[in-house]
């Protein structure tokens, strides 16, 4: 394994805790808003690290750019979806935890 593969592997490895913490937040946080917070933030950072790590490991710049494009599209979609879920919950009268 050359240096780039080690760096890519390290990035993928660094991404895993974000997914674990995002999932922990989804399971343990008290209401829909805090759960969205956990998912939309932690998972996206984790996905970014995994995508960049895999792209670097592949050794191909084109593949790296494609994976980053997937990540960017996921960021846009997940931010919009999280906002829509939160707005729908708010309009249905779900009060944020602690208010």
């Amino acid at each position: 394994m050359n240096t780039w593969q080690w760096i890519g592997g390290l990035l993928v490895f660094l991404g895993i805790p974000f997914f674990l913490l995002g999932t922990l937040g989804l399971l343990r946080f008290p209401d829909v808003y805090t759960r969205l917070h956990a998912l939309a933030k932690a998972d996206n950072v984790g996905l970014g690290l995994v995508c960049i790590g895999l792209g670097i490991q592949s050794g191909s710049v084109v593949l790296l750019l494609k994976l980053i494009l997937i990540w960017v599209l996921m960021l846009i979609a997940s931010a919009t979806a999280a906002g829509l879920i939160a707005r729908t919950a708010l309009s249905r009268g779900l009060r944020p935890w602690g208010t």
Partner: protein
Amino acid sequence: MGVAGVIFDGLLALALVWLAWQATRAADLFHAVVSFIVFGLLMALAWVRLEAPDIALAEAAIGAGATGALLLSALDRLASRDGRHRMLYEPATAWGFWIPAGGALLGGLNLAAWKLPAPGLGEEVLASLKLSGVDHPVTAVLLNFRALDTLLEIGVLLLAAVTIWSLGRAPSPLVPAMPSPALPALGRLLFPVFVLVAAYLLWRGSHAPGGAFPAGAVLGAGAILMLLAGARPWIRSSEHGPWRWILSLGLAMLLAAGVTGSLFGGAFFEYPTGIAGPTILVLEVAAGLSIALLLFALYLRGEPCEHGYRGAGT
């Protein structure tokens, strides 16, 4: 395949069984629909593991995406109690019957799979691939060797759309209760990407996994996104009548291609030698456009009409 691969496949199989169970047995229908969508996504992953990327693409786009959107939109039409949808009937609990019946079905399928001729028809398809006009065996089967199957599949989709439209006018589309500025922006930003991906998948079908079904599903999903973002469907009969022909374009073109073959002394769906490639490309474009519009038409839940939506004060 290493140990990690075996563990991954095992987890995938267990998750699929669990999700199938949830999708059929969950008392809350929303829970069941979400389980079904996740089941579709994991099923696509299973097809990738089986090295069948064509089926994986179709499963993700149609099984999880388009069907999921349809189920969610159907859920919205059901009567609900305190915002939740419950099963209207008690799921059958005759275990003494279902467990042996399921076991017998599974055993029968296993036996049938075991009895299949080992290499299948793969060798024969590869041997005649150069005659088919395309370089990708799956496309060769779908649009040349077994084009009749594709014709019938699109016919089923068209029948479904006609049936749904004949049930009544389209209800007003689902819009978020609290309008979000992000959704129209997302629609405008992403629709060109949807068109680009659909065109790419369509073009790629001649030499690699892709083709009309995934391309049509992606384009249809883009149209559904635009609808959710507040766009008005433009296939209303008075202004846009001719555009409705796109709904049946795929079926008509496939039928024409099939009949032309028999008219000129060949068999049904026998393309003239030399122009098989261009014929398949034209058929793919027609079928892809039809599939996109048909999936969108299914999602409208009724015929779009010029006098506004049902219940919109007309």
